[in-house]
């Protein structure tokens, strides 16, 4: 008996003629994500991909954990692949699913026969397997409507696959299938969640972090590394650009009115991020903003920020409450990292009474005190690249 993983890709099946491209991308992503565990062969047929480890000792538990986080997978299951012979199938169902069968009270059998040369028809397979398991596990009874366990038998071209419980996948679209975007990440709770959500829709991520030593510490940057490492479990490898931002922030502090400080800072960040996005061939920016969460995220403030953006800015959290964001950040395990108490670029020089309804005219007037072009150019040029992988 060989053990394999059967992967059902949900939404991908809807993609018509592009399906093959999407599937290939998913397989590439899976192969990359599992590379530390061992080599796998992937076979695609109908809407199922079978992943089989080449190496007998591959860690299946870890494989399952990693696949749970790959976007583009609706559900998957661990399955036994055996010869297409009824006696072998019965014996394997009895042994391979022993734990599931022992812990269930009711069950049913579902069979699929894509190899029409197989002598038994699907209902006949169900009847035979069901009867056999009832004899071997007398505590069970059949319930075809709401069974605690569904035993699946799939007769395919090469093998018969036997599997029990399905594992829910991460859903979404394969990372990269929608292109690439640049995530602005500070170290707080929101930006990693925003990155995760856009990766779920198939965007590959590159990240931009603004560092202002000595106001921010090395630990603050390490915290961003840790956050991205966690996001990368879902999104795949992330290229991080660390932008030196001290001079810009000090000059804003010295030359601009305090009440507009944050909005100007964010406009500067957007300008630098766009240069980096261009360098990375990313077609959009991603931020963790949510309307009204802080003064720089009111509608007029966002309008001032957007005013300098020539590419779309995706804000997946725009209509979410903080507690809704926290729920996701706990689920993707970025929350505990986010709440480490290091000063980040956004909290340096926070004004006491920021303007909540800035106008573009006012902001532009205030910005005249800065050599915007030089600062943006230098910050982008001096950015440092770090490659972040999950495993």
């Amino acid at each position, binding site marked *: 008996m060989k053990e394999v993983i059967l992967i059902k890709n949900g939404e991908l099946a809807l993609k018509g003629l592009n399906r093959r491209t999407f599937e290939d991308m998913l397989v590439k992503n899976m192969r990359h994500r599992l590379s530390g565990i061992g080599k796998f062969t992937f076979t695609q047929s109908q809407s199922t991909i079978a992943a089989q480890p080449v190496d007998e000792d591959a860690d299946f538990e870890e494989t399952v954990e990693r696949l749970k986080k790959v976007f583009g997978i609706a559900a998957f299951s661990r399955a036994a692949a055996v010869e297409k012979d009824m006696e072998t199938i019965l014996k394997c169902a009895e042994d391979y699913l022993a734990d599931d069968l022992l812990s269930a009270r009711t069950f049913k059998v579902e069979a699929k026969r894509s190899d029409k040369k197989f002598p038994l028809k699907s209902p006949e397979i169900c009847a035979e397997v069901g009867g056999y398991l009832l004899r071997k596990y007398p505590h069970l009874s059949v319930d075809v409507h709401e069974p605690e366990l569904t035993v699946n038998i799939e007769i395919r071209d090469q093998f018969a696959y036997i599997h029990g419980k399905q594992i829910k996948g991460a859903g979404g679209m394969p990372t990269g299938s929608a292109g690439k975007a640049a995530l602005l990440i500070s170290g707080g709770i929101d930006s990693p969640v925003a990155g995760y959500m856009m990766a779920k829709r198939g965007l590959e991520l590159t990240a931009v972090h603004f560092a202002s*030593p*000595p*106001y*921010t*510490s*090395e630990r603050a940057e390490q915290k961003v590394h840790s956050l991205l490492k966690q996001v990368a479990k879902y999104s795949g490898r992330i290229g991080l650009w660390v932008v030196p931002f001290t001079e810009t922030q*000090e000059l804003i*502090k*010295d030359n601009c009115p*305090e009440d507009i400080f944050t909005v100007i800072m964010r406009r500067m960040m957007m300008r630098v991020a766009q240069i980096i996005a261009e360098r990375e061939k990313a077609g959009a920016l991603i931020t963790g903003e949510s309307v009204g969460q802080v003064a720089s995220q009111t509608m007029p403030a966002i309008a001032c920020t957007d005013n300098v953006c020539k590419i779309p800015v995706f804000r997946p959290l725009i209509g979410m409450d903080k507690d809704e964001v926290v729920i996701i950040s706990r689920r993707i395990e970025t929350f505990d990292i986010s709440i*480490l*108490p*290091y*000063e980040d670029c956004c909290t*340096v*020089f926070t004004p*006491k009474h920021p303007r909540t309804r800035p106008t573009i005219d006012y902001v532009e007037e205030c910005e005249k005190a800065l050599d915007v072009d030089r600062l943006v150019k230098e910050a982008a040029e001096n950015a440092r690249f770090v490659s972040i992988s999950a495993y």
Partner: protein
Amino acid sequence: MEAYFDNSATTAPCAEAIEAMNFALRECWGNPSSLHRTGNKAKELLELSRESIAKRLSCYPEEIFFTSGGTESNNLAVIGAANQMKRFGKRIVSTSIEHPSIDETLSRLEEDGFEIIRLKVDSHGKINEKDLFAAVNSNTILITMMLVNNEVGSIMPIASAKRAAMAARSPALIHCDAVQAFGKMPIKPSALGVDLMTISSHKIHGPKGVGALYIRKGVKIKPRTFGGAQEMKIRPGTEAMPAIAGFGAAARALPDPKKELEHVTMLRDYMVSHLEDIDGVVINSPEDALPFVTNISIIGTKSEPMLNFLSERGISVSSGSACSKGKKSHVLAKMDLDAKRLEGPLRISFSRFTTLDEIDYLITAIAEGRKKIRQTK
């Protein structure tokens, strides 16, 4: 230039400690409980370390029990004493500025039905002795108090604890967390009326992972770990010989605390007089603090940028206790200092290896940082 001013967090291991640990790992790796020669060699080293530490506390070697460090010793002392004494009463008296390994443990006991009194401190980081006498009643079973505060260096009137217990006719045991004091000032638990005392190795240039609890002869507490007969069953488990050997060697290498104190007081006074010349600097430590610890605030300059600024120049200071990194200092908050001071506290802590050159370097860097770092309003 590198200058390390975070000796209240941990100290660099001294050459003697490193040598002793090497020796223990190479020559005395046996199990001290084994009866053969290999075991005996380890046992001898274990007892030598115990004697060296006892000598520093002017106590008997059999009053020293090795643990994994300050936190474990504090936990063992407080919970062990509470469990031993609970039939006499439920009240435990402590202070509001204890280390988390005392404070959190007391909160745990509070959940179990003990009554915890945390005495307030004044702006010098000290409790009022009258409050202490008022808080201790006949149902009090434990008084636990640190000798030197880890953030501001204030010295607590620990000797009054026994007197307060006697005045209230209470059977209370007296525990003293002396982690920040051991090796830095003359300490004799019996003279202080202390029954239990916590000390730690890595604050006196020994290795991490080892500490001790002094338990006065005749005093009983309940163990928290069960197993073999090591450490008189108070703390069973095979002894961490290399670390204990390092601890013993570090204790032997300690200079005469009186002379040491004079020297470090001179260094502290020199530093403080120069720091006070820098715009915005205020000293949070009381004048009679242990000179090894000096807590300052720079009004208008936050701790974190200053800390990073100094770190870039090879200078290590901290913004508070390493055990609660990043959080606002609970000690300064309890001292009821001006809110402006809480924004930018820095803890500068010396060791016996601190030099005048290092202090000059620090003063210059703080003055430079004060000018360069943009101020808060």
